[in-house]
């Protein structure tokens, strides 16, 4: 199962990114876990210096910006 993680401390942009990721999963009809990671230590340990960050299966795919639904869908189908 695909694991999608949204790293951020819980501001509006993290919420937007989470919503976009959920929409992308819904559109693609794939089995995926969309998870929020709000723990600051965990975020630092991942090497994220700018939030929000998007990780797909453990790989950083975007940092400090919010990819739209189509971009996330493209990432998920690569």
């Amino acid at each position, binding site marked *: 199962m695909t694991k999608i993680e949204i790293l*951020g*401390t819980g*501001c*509006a*942009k*993290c919420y*937007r990114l989470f*919503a*976009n990721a959920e*929409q992308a999963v819904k559109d693609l009809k794939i089995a995926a876990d969309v998870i929020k990671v709000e723990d*600051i230590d965990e*975020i*630092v340990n991942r090497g*994220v*210096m*700018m*939030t*929000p960050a998007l990780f797909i299966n453990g790989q950083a795919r975007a*940092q*400090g*910006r*919010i990819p*739209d*639904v*189509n*971009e996330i869908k493209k990432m998920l189908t690569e």
Partner: protein
Amino acid sequence: MAEQPTCSCGANEPKRIIFPCAGQANVGQLTNLAALQLTDEGYGNIACVALLATGAESLLANTMTADEVVILDGCPMLCAKKIAGAQGVAAGQHLVLTELGLTKGPSKSYTDADIEKVVAACWKGEGRNKDAATPKKAGGNNSGCGCGGTC
């Protein structure tokens, strides 16, 4: 002490300029409120479509250097899109609020949920990847704005 990630949140966002039609109807006013919220959330910066219509050089220069122009039209009249087009400005994202399920007039009222619907659609990029350049044929026998003659 370990360096903390900055919650500069969205520091890597592209430079966007948002033009709301800001029309008098409820959906027009909603474009304005949505553009303000999008500016507040760091999606881009609201700009004045009326000033764009005057051909103001500073605004045009600013617009031409933006990574993306976002146009919010309330109804199928597409006033903001037409104004931008007349100045040679193309939209990277174009949303028409009536196409999002919002009803134009006769009420002037709106809810926070209406604003959220527009803002979320913008963040999701729902106005991209479609031929937004073609004005849709309006219904009714009035001015063509789709309000049924109430505006």
